[in-house]
């Protein structure tokens, strides 16, 4: 233990009566002589008294609350007897106290029920995509558990509500040459020469749908959920089909991939290619790029080359399967290390040159999420550095998982990072005050008084800067934006392609429920903080259940149903505060639909 701390310990022992008589006598003798020591003892004694005050005040506050609650219950009882619930609620609302008790929410619950929202119980019919009157294409939305639907332009059920959805844009290209096509909303797709799996040189017809606006995505019944129901955040979706007169559905040749440029207002980090497939309910669900190659590649764009260099992990051109693992390791080593160097913040640069190495082990789940991160050190790696590395390593971004024999695997890695090689680190702020003090003290011993003062000032400044940075970081994590207005993806598949990322979890998640007995309602939740749309994962016991929805998230709830050939819509905006929700249906009109479209597209995220 440091000398300063030892002194504190001795004083503590004295104050707490932990000394034996001889020690005590000796110490008291010193006290008489040493005025400074006596002052020091007094200070420590006062601090303990200060601690007691803090504790007592806390307890007093608790007492106040609990007394208050007793009174509230008493008043509540009286009020209940006198005028019933409404008055009781008013009493509570009138009081200035904020309490932790449940009574408030309970009463509010009751209040809600009194109002009653149960009049909306109707039926719905199943989803089907239909072809509209003349040229427009229409989709009927609902949660057709019984009837699975395949997008099919030929079915017609003209009596249903008609929600205009995107029409395919058509392009005709010569497959033997490289081609670029540009969609109406700015998607650029680059086909290499001989991109398709076909023998024929006949011209290829490309059909394209672009989904960028939230309304477009919702009305097309698309979501941003993975196969496992995990929420992802989209940067735009496209649907691409290719055909030749002789072949109705063309695929890309096995060794070819297309490049997509998706426009965006603000670029968010970590976007990857996801491809769409249908789940049991007929919803399009997404999977991280089917092959390794079909991931986000380093960005370089003609608009902005100012050093924007996004690192995406596990991206590599592949050789044969056996080489893949080796390469992946090599690649990961470098990239994880880069990430750590880039993101590591330590309070102060140790004077001594750092040595040793650190092992970082982690597991990449099938979906790319990194878990089970562990750091162990070897050699005489600095403890401080080690601790901070540990913190940084815990936040590794998703890594493209290992892909073998047609499926993604959960894989564990351990990589070694040499410290003396690359860690000439940035010196920034502090994270843990105590650690900071430790280094600080050590350095202090080597300084003159004048530099000490100067040093204090600098540290203070650094600390402030760092705190600011932490705050900024917190904000940025949610919305890591770069000044580039395109996402660049590659894909070795056609069909549904989605540019997504896993959003950062913020405030925890819980399930969001909508109370509704009708099982045939087609509903979607549109999140406000991230660009995401989800559908209920289960419908049971009169509840539409959306599990794992971020707490406190602002959401728009959109639902459609049909009853007696009349179409109804429910649109509301609420916050996910763990309370059950109910639909509020009204007849679907053109105006209403336009209004919903406007509101959806006004959501900025």
């Amino acid at each position: 233990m440091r000398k300063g701390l030892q002194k504190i310990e001795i004083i503590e022992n004295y104050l707490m009566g932990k000394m034996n008589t001889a020690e005590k006598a000796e110490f008291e003798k010193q006290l008489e002589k040493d005025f400074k020591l006596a002052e020091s003892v007094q200070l420590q004694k006062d601090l303990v008294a200060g601690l007691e005050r803090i504790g007592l005040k806390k307890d007093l506050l608790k007492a106040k609350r609990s007394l208050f609650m007793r009174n509230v219950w008493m008043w509540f009882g009286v009020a209940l007897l006198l005028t019933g619930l409404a008055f009781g609620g008013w009493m509570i609302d009138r009081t200035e106290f904020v309490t932790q008790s449940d009574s408030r929410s309970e009463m509010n619950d009751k209040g809600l029920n009194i109002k009653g929202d149960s009049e909306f119980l109707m039926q719905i019919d199943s989803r089907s995509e239909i072809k509209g009157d003349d040229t427009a294409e229409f989709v009927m939305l609902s949660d057709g558990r019984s009837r699975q639907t395949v997008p099919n332009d030929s079915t017609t059920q003209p009596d249903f509500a008609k929600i205009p959805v995107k029409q395919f844009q058509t392009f005709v290209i010569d497959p033997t040459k490289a081609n670029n096509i540009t969609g109406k909303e700015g998607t650029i797709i680059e086909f290499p020469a001989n991109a398709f799996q076909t023998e024929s040189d006949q011209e290829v017809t490309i059909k394209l749908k672009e989904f960028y606006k939230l309304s477009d995505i919702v009305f097309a019944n698309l979501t941003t959920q993975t196969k496992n129901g995990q929420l992802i955040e989209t940067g735009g979706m496209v649907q691409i089909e290719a055909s030749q007169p002789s072949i109705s559905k063309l695929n890309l040749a096995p060794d070819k991939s297309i490049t997509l440029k998706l426009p965006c207002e603000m670029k968010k980090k970590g976007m990857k290619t996801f491809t769409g497939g249908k789940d049991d309910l007929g919803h399009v669900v997404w999977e991280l790029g089917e092959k390794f190659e079909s991931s986000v590649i380093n960005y370089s764009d003609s608009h902005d080359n100012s050093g924007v260099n996004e690192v995406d992990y596990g991206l590599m051109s592949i050789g044969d399967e056996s080489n893949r693992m080796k390469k992946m390791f090599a690649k990961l080593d470098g990239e994880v290390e880069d990430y750590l160097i880039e993101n590591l913040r330590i309070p102060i640069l140790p004077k001594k040159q750092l040595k040793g190495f650190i092992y970082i082990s982690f597991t990449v789940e099938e979906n790319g999420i990194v878990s089970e991160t562990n750091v162990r050190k070897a050699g005489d790696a600095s403890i401080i550095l080690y601790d901070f590395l540990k913190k940084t390593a815990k936040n590794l971004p998703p890594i493209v998982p290992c892909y073998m024999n047609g499926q993604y695997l959960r894989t564990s890695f351990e990589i070694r990072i040499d410290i003396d090689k690359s860690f000439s680190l940035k010196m920034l702020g502090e994270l843990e005050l105590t650690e900071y003090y430790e280094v600080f003290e050590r350095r202090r011993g080597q300084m003159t008084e004048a530099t000490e003062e100067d040093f204090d000032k600098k540290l203070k400044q650094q600390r402030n800067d760092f705190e600011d940075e932490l705050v900024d970081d917190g904000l940025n994590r949610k919305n890591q934006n770069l000044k580039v207005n395109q996402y660049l993806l590659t894909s070795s598949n056609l069909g549904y392609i989605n540019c997504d990322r896993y959003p950062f979890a913020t405030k925890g998640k819980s399930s969001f429920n909508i109370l509704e007995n009708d099982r045939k309602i087609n509903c979607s939740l549109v999140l406000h903080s991230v660009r995401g749309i989800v559908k209920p994962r289960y419908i049971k016991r009169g509840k539409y259940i959306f599990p794992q929805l971020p707490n406190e998230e602002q959401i728009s709830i959109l639902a459609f149903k049909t009853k007696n050939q009349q179409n109804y819509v429910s649109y509301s905006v609420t916050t996910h505060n763990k309370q059950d929700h109910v639909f509020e249906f009204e007849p679907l009109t053109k105006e209403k639909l336009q209004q919903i479209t406007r509101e959806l597209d006004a959501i900025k995220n």
Partner: protein
Amino acid sequence: MSDYKIIQQARTGKREKAFVQLYRGFPAVKKLILSKGGTAEEAEDVFQEALIIFYKKAIHPEFRLTASISTYVYSVARFLWLDELKKKGLKYGTEEVENLKFESELEEIAQKEKKFQVMEEALKSIGEKCLMILQLFYYKGFSMKEIARQVDLKSEKVAKNQKYKCLERARKRALEVQTINA
């Protein structure tokens, strides 16, 4: 509940129960302070201060109650408030000058509490975790082992070391605050 019982509770570590009873005296004190130019907030501060003073006295084994608790707390609160007013240079009529039996003693106690308030201020700036460790040890009387578990530290030894570091930090802050106040 009888005063005797409240004091028993306070002495046997049933602090919170005692406080709930004691807090019932607040409306009277609030009324007093409001009538003497204070705000509701000030009333609460003064009342809590009075309760702390009473509590510290009450747990002393030699403490004997000479009046009812509510009277005692009320008198202390009144003293504190008049003292406060005096400092502000305000006086409220001559009838207030009536002497309390324990006034001189109270003055001393109040003085001390002022000093501890400074400590309180300093302690609040040492970080939540640090404060928690110190509180658990000095106020709640937890063992270092228990504290290590609660604060999520690796071992008793780490917790102990941490405790001293926190104390050290608190000392530094206290000295800083003292200089500022001086």
